[in-house]
């Protein structure tokens, strides 16, 4: 829902994500993969490399890798949704 208030476009946070175009989705996924690859192959920070303190009982490196696995799943899911909708619209 778009509300006009003193010339400003006050849309809820979610609505700003909704109209994501396939082009933006490609860009976002590309950026995500780049950052993930850098994080998974190179120590972006000491926090990533050092084991202590443990996070949820896991060494920090392992915990970070698990977070990337979960984040990749979510990113791919979102990307797939955007592209699926686009394909459906094209088919229609």
């Amino acid at each position, binding site marked *: 829902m778009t509300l006009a208030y003193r010339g400003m476009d006050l849309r809820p946070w979610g609505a700003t994500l909704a109209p994501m175009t396939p082009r933006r989705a490609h860009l976002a996924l590309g950026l995500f993969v780049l950052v993930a690859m850098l994080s998974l192959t190179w*120590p972006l920070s000491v926090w990533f*490399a050092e084991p202590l303190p443990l996070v949820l009982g*896991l060494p920090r490196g392992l915990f970070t890798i698990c977070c990337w696995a979960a984040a990749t799943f979510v990113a791919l899911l979102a990307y797939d949704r955007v592209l699926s909708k686009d394909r459906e619209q094209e088919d229609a």
Partner: protein
Amino acid sequence: MGADIQIMGVVGLYLALSLFVGLRAGKGVSDSATGFVAGDRAMGGVLMYFVTGATIFSAFAFLGAPGWAWSRGAAAFHILAFGILGFIPFYFIGPAASRLGRKHGFVTQAELVAARLGSRPLALVMALVSLLAFIPYLALQMRGSGHVLEVLTRGAIPMQWGAALVYGVVLLYVWRSGVMGVGWTNTLQGLFMMVLAWTLGLYLPYALHGGVGPMFAKIAERDPGFLTLPGRTPDGGDWSWSSYASSVFVMAVGFSFWPHLFQKAFAAKSERVLRRTVVLYPTFQFFLLPILFIGFAGVGFDPPPEQADQILPHLLLHMDLPALVVGLFCAGALAASMSSGDAILHSAASIVVRDGWIVGFGRSLSPHAERRAVRLMLLPLLLVSYLVAAVFPVDIVGLLSYAYGPVGQLAPPVLAALFWSKATGRGALAGLVVGSMVTIWFSRFPLWPVHAGLLGLVANVLLLVSISLLGPHWGERFPRKR
């Protein structure tokens, strides 16, 4: 002796169930090469998820990965890292390959690339590179299965006999049912492995250290460097960041281009199924997490195993667990070995016949004759791999890492064939040959602390691009549908 019989009983039941499922899976599939190699292009979502997941997680998951965690600490994290991103390219190449497969009748990776770039020798070289990676990889699976049976029956079943027994079962169901046999047994094996990995992965740290957190805290207190990335080398020194980073990179790049995995693009029911499989794939990494816990649980265990790869069977044997539990683990390890071994064997046989004989040498076979030829090729391939497994001792993850080097070289020609209109057969061929040679050379004689596959990829891409730009360009070039 009674315990050995119980263990063998559980293993026997598992093998019988796998055989039953594998033999039944081939019902209703057409009597053609497309039926045998691509399952009549009708594989659904569940099957695809387990085929892609269980195919990649092989004997190394139950033996090699805990061995690395036990002996090299944080270095083992890279096993988890490369699989997270490795399958993403398949979201794009899978549907593209599937579409072309339906249109032109392709069932192998090399066939598609050779047809697009108009180069028969390219199909032959890609087949050769695939076999270079497949034979040691299959040998590794056989050795892993034989090894588990030998250790857990305390030598009652020697490695060679164990491997022959397990792969005899694999041969039967792959012979009968082709890719559908691989698919349905992988589903059974994947579910079994997941349950077993989490059960053992939580139980062993709890039994030996009081839980996962206390286990890591104890290891970190005793030797903080052990859990610090990038971990240790096999002789206990510090592994370099360049080796760690390049290993993750090369293995992530090579991941989607394993020919047996790529071939599943031709077996999928729809492009949607392929995309969904890629989206769900990172969740399979959580199956590997408890596998690492198992290895870390063995740190400080007395007595230590003779070899790192033996840590899990060693722990189970020395913890006085019920024979039923040991037998279940044994069956799980066999499931891991078989779920990769069957796919590799099936793919290798189809590659020799389709890419070598039909595309490479330009011979023609009827669909029925081709199916028979693929079946017959299973025998020599299995025999050669068995001899390699019986004769050469191998480090399981080390060999896997080596195998990813040549497989990674398949990425540039496949990507170029699908997405770069200026790519030429000559460029792809030169890049692949030189890239593979560079990889093998630097694996044998390392010059810098980086994965040899990275150097091969650089040479490969440079040659592919530069020679392709010189032309001549063939443009779209596909054969008629068979």
